[in-house]
């Protein structure tokens, strides 16, 4: 018997393992990595920041495409010059040669150095791993300072007309300016910056406002609809299908549909809203701050109220009708029945529906991205939209990841609050495994 139990346990773990590994690798690990990225100044459009660096390093490709040519160019200039100019040039050449020696003093770097040289001689491109060499802080700083000085000196000489091929020499020297890659670890700076930026607070406020208002309306309307259709009637199936369609249609497509209906010139809904006095002018719906927020909430309520009603209807159907019969025999009014029977027994259904809806609303992206793009004047910009813009429009993955982590933390806090309310209801076995 004990053996059998062990077998069962083993089987259990091995059946769960593939799914758990996938979830760990594709969902949990990325969240941890997002946090890791958020600690760096990580930008995709800046070659020196397009990956994560803990320490100083040297872009050997950039270095070797410039230094040898600069060296020979300087030699040529020296041969053509005399007096003070020649001396200055000799000093520059010496300084750079010393630096070159310092770079090569590390055996590992020297090896990479030669290999990259070889690759470049064959007119090929070295791989990223090969071309990035680690550099100690001292050499790195020396390199940066020296190159800067050299460029300045050469520019002055160019102005003074002391160089024959001034543009070439200066260009090559300037080519050395970007070769030192500085560590881009910034710690919690992105978080500090985000929290001191009004745009984040505005986005957080927009998200919260959108979430609270739309979920509250959806709950009230959804509960009303669920109560009304919780009876036998002709055409149930059709109503149920009607309810499911807004839920099933892609959010992006429904957002576009609403954009058409809200259109300031040709939108029928905008026109009706103007006729009944909900907005002053048709165009206000998508071009004023309040109008846009209202439009977004209205579209969300349209799409998800039916879903809310379905969840609550399923909850209502589990309440035994005998309770209501008993209550009406005891003379309870409809309202009393609602507050004393329906609401308490529906509590866990309501909380679960609220949990799912709140989290969905809080991370809203598609609807707003397509309908308003966050505008006008960022008035409907939610935190997910802001994070997306920072990441993919500004290609600032570091700061964007920090915002993404903030969204994650908010969602975590919201879930914890709900789960505390719900207790263990959510995870306990429905049919209990006690045998």
């Amino acid at each position: 018997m004990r053996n059998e139990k062990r077998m069962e346990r083993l089987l259990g773990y091995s059946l769960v393992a593939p799914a758990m590994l996938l979830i760990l690798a594709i969902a949990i690990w990325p969240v941890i990595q997002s946090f890791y990225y958020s600690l760096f100044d990580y930008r995709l459009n800046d070659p020196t920041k397009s990956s994560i660096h803990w320490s100083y390093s040297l872009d050997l490709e950039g270095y070797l495409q410039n230094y040898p040519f600069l060296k020979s160019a300087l030699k040529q200039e020296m041969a053509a010059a005399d007096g003070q100019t020649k001396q200055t040039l000799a000093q520059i050449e010496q300084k750079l040669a010393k630096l070159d020696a310092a770079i090569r003093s590390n055996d590992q770097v020297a090896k990479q150095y030669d290999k990259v040289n070889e690759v470049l001689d064959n007119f090929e491109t070295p791989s990223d791993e090969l071309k990035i060499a680690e550099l100690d802080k001292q050499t790195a700083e020396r390199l940066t300072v020296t190159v800067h000085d050299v460029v300045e000196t050469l520019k002055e000489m160019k102005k003074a007309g002391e160089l024959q091929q001034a543009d070439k020499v200066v260009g090559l020297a300037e080519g050395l300016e970007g070769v030192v890659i500085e560590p881009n670890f910034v710690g919690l700076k992105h978080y500090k910056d985000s929290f001191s930026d009004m745009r984040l607070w505005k986005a957080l406020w927009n998200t919260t406002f959108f979430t609270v208002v739309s979920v509250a309306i959806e709950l009230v309307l959804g509960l009303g609809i669920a109560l009304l259709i919780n009876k036998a009637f002709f055409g149930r199936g059709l109503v149920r299908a009607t309810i499911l369609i807004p839920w099933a249609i892609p959010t992006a497509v429904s957002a576009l549909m609403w954009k058409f209906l809200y259109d300031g010139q040709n939108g029928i809904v905008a026109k009706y809203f103007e006729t009944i006095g909900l907005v002053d002018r048709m165009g206000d719906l998508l071009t004023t701050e309040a109008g846009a927020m209202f439009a977004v909430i209205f579209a969300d309520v349209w799409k998800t109220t039916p879903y809310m009603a379905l969840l609550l209807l399923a909850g209502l159907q589990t309440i035994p009708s005998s309770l209501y019969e008993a209550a009406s025999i005891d003379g309870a009014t409809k309202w009393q029945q609602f507050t004393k029977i329906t609401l308490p027994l529906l509590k866990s259904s309501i909380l679960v529906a609220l949990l799912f809806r709140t989290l969905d609303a809080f991370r809203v992206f598609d609807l707003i991205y397509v309908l308003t793009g966050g505008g006008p004047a960022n008035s409907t910009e939610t935190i997910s939209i802001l994070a997306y813009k920072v990441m993919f429009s500004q290609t600032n993955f570091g700061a964007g990841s920090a915002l993404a982590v903030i969204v994650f933390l908010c969602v975590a806090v919201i879930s914890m609050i709900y789960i505390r309310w719900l207790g263990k209801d959510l995870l306990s076995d429905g049919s209990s495994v006690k045998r």
Partner: protein
Amino acid sequence: MQKKAGPFFYVFLALFVFFVMFPFLWVLLSSIKPLGELFGDKAFDWFTSHPTLKSYVSVFVNYPFLRYLWNSTVVATVTTVYTVFVAAFAAYAIARLEFKGKTVILGLVLAVSMFPQIATISPIYMFVKKFGLTNSYLGLIIPYTTFALPLSIWLLVTFFRKIPFDLEEAAKMDGATPMQTYFKIIFPLAVPGVFTTSILVFIAAWNEFLFALTINTAEKYKTVPVGIAMFQGQYTIPWGEISAATVIVTIPLVIMVLLFQRRIVSGLTSGSVKE
């Protein structure tokens, strides 16, 4: 509470159905209007006197809409088949076998299903980029695991729990191995649940927007939601084509919903109601 429905009720019902369906109705009516009647004076007329299918033709001729449909179909189908397959084993174990840490695992699954997509997008984007998977089907199928797998597990666990335990006991008595029990007893009974789960996962994958928007940016690999959303140009929005495309993607959904509404509802509500 089974009460008889009165006439007022049906009036309310008709109004409700009308309000819910109005946007679709309007889009349907607009999709058969000639271009000139979408703007200006005639924009608010319900019915056009010159119905035309020009917008529908244009959707397929001027946009790679067929390609979008195909891409969405491939991505959603593969995602559904593979996640439901992996999830079925895990869900069976969680619902039917005794082992420590089950509640923790289920909690983890639920937690992951609540992850905001934006929190995983940057590392996933870097990952697919590094392996050259941007603009490929695999580049979407892998990220879609993040929401499809937890959803499948969560739904399947509730379905598996509803299968009576006695059957399993009986199979065990007769000397069936756990694997035999699974394939001969549980699985056939679980088919409806698996089917329902597949529908819901398919819809979720079909509708996904953020990953598709960032990862598959080439026309050739865009999915339907992204493709339609990108119909809008910088200055003009081709409402006729957008209406037609919306109708085209909505009709299969309507048919699916009509056919499977019972299953979809049972799937949507299974995790939230204690029976």
